[in-house]
């Protein structure tokens, strides 16, 4: 994606409000990065990594990524950054992951001490939920993408000589209100126990099918 400055010769002065779009995205990316770091420092992985790295340095490094992206004329809250932030917050999820414990069991056959050590670290964090922190990141990312898309549309229209100020500003406002409303309701909806009482084999088959479909869609 290209920033306004690349095509500023073609965008009329009336379209200068479109510069606000990337700035809003930068702010959202910074807040999301902060939440991801909070989740990271709450996770059990910190116990292992802090032995080898000066993790306090992560704050300025990660918080500077959106600024660098903006300087490089890219979306400050890009997909790559979102993936990275989610992976950064994954430590708490590993503590509750069956797959992770299965792999620890496999490791136990090869290196029982290490497997036991990891198990002791992660099993102690089983009760920690990262849902709210992750929800913050996902909400901020979805909002930033909606803002970015409407900004891009607005820029296209300005280049064609159409005034899009009313449209874009209203879209930003609408996106914020609606996403925030859903963000507020979301934890309430998922706090209801919706776990189905179906046989595990059936859930497994459905999960496998959904996984294949999702993987196929992601590769397209």
């Amino acid at each position, binding site marked *: 994606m290209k920033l306004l400055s690349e095509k500023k010769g073609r965008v009329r002065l009336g379209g200068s409000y479109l510069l606000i779009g990337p700035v809003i995205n930068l702010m959202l990316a910074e807040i999301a990065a902060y939440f991801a770091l909070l989740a990271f420092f709450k996770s059990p992985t910190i116990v292992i990594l802090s032995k080898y790295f000066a993790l306090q340095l992560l704050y300025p490094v990660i918080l500077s990524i959106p600024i660098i992206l903006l300087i490089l004329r890219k979306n400050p809250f890009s997909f790559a950054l979102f993936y990275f932030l989610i992976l950064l917050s994954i430590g708490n999820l590993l503590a*509750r992951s069956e797959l992770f414990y299965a792999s620890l069991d496999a490791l136990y056959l090869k290196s029982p001490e290490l497997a036991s050590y990891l198990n002791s670290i992660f099993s102690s964090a089983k009760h920690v939920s990262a849902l709210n922190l992750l929800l913050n990141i996902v909400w901020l990312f*979805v909002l930033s993408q909606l803002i970015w898309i409407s900004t891009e549309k607005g820029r296209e229209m300005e280049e*064609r000589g159409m*005034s899009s100020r*009313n*449209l874009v500003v209203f879209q930003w406002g609408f996106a914020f209100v609606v996403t925030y409303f*859903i963000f507020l309701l979301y934890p309430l909806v998922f706090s209801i126990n919706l776990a189905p009482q179906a046989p595990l084999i059936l859930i497994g088959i459905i999960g496998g099918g959904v996984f294949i479909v999702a993987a196929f*869609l992601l590769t397209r």
Partner: protein
Amino acid sequence: MKIRKGTYVLVKTSMFLLVLGILLTSYELVALSVFPVLFLLTPTLPLRVKVLGHELEGGRYVGEDFRVSISMTASGFGVVKVMHKLPEHFELSEGSNAVARFVIGSSRLEIDYRAIPTKRGKYSLEKLVIQVENPFLTGKLFVREIEVPLEVEVKQKVPKLIKIGVHRGIARSPTPDVDVSKIGVPGTDFREIREYVSGDPVKFINWKASARKNDVMVNQYEVEGKKSVWIFLDANPYMKHGELIRNYLEAAIEVANALSYYYTHRGYRVGLYVVGHRRYLYPDTGRRQFRRMVDELIRVEPSETHESMEEAFENSKTLLITYKPLIYFITRIEYSKPVRAVLKASKVSRRGRLAPVEVITLTMDGGNDFPEKAIGILRKSLEARIRSAGVKLTVWELGRPLSQILLKEVLYA
């Protein structure tokens, strides 16, 4: 089916969370994967657009801008974009022919712009394209059209010629202002006495001369009306070359327009043959004929098939023999190679040493590369051959004023 960007982004985010959630058997991630796709459920609600008024001013000639203003109301909820569709030969000069709004309830939309037509023709500007989509720009995009009764006829500006040059040397006046026609209604000016031929009116028999000669003799009077002019306008495919606004065909039409204006306003009969389309217009005089010529010229487009000048001459030979007109060939001689057609035409009209045929060839400054030079040499050779046949040839380099070119006198032996 094309997936919209908004939809793609939300689905991609959701899929990433879902795949990661399944891989890590994480309930939180699977639960979060629903969050982005919730926005895809936002429906596109119907939005009604109504035209309140419209106006079109100016734009009657090529290169002259015109103003269009259309006022509308939109009622409903969502994002609406309205675009007034312009033909490809129109250029926007001010404002925009489209408007976009986020509509909540009711909103007034105004389209106000100026555009310049770059090509002659009759254009319909009746289509308003309306796009309606949901506020997140996801989901289905509804597109429909409504009509506004707007139409514009764009003519080419006719260069006002004060006078057209004459040949000196061979022809004293092949295009004189007082040149009279060979056919037409006989007037009262006596011309000569000649022998009776079948079809001559009895009232023209000169009884005294008949008695003296012992043969039936008739008086001949000068006919009313002026001489005819016949224009061969080349619209073969090679005339398409050039820019959209300034190409050979447009220049040829400009010449035809100017000549028809000049001659029809001086009482000449003017006829037209469009080479390539095999269409012609009978010679006639007056403003009405000029109007017919303009209407015909507005419709002229480069032809799909090729027609040679000789074929064109053969197709209109009967009319040429009848009217014995002054003939103009407007063409690119390096492509049409009209030498044989020109010679035939000059024989049809020749009276003594008169050769009332004129070739107007169009050229452009094409640069110094080899193909252009080769074409230039070919053109020079053809020009020499045409001139040596005693036919007037005018070279119009596009970009120079037409009136100056046609006024220029050609001196040759």
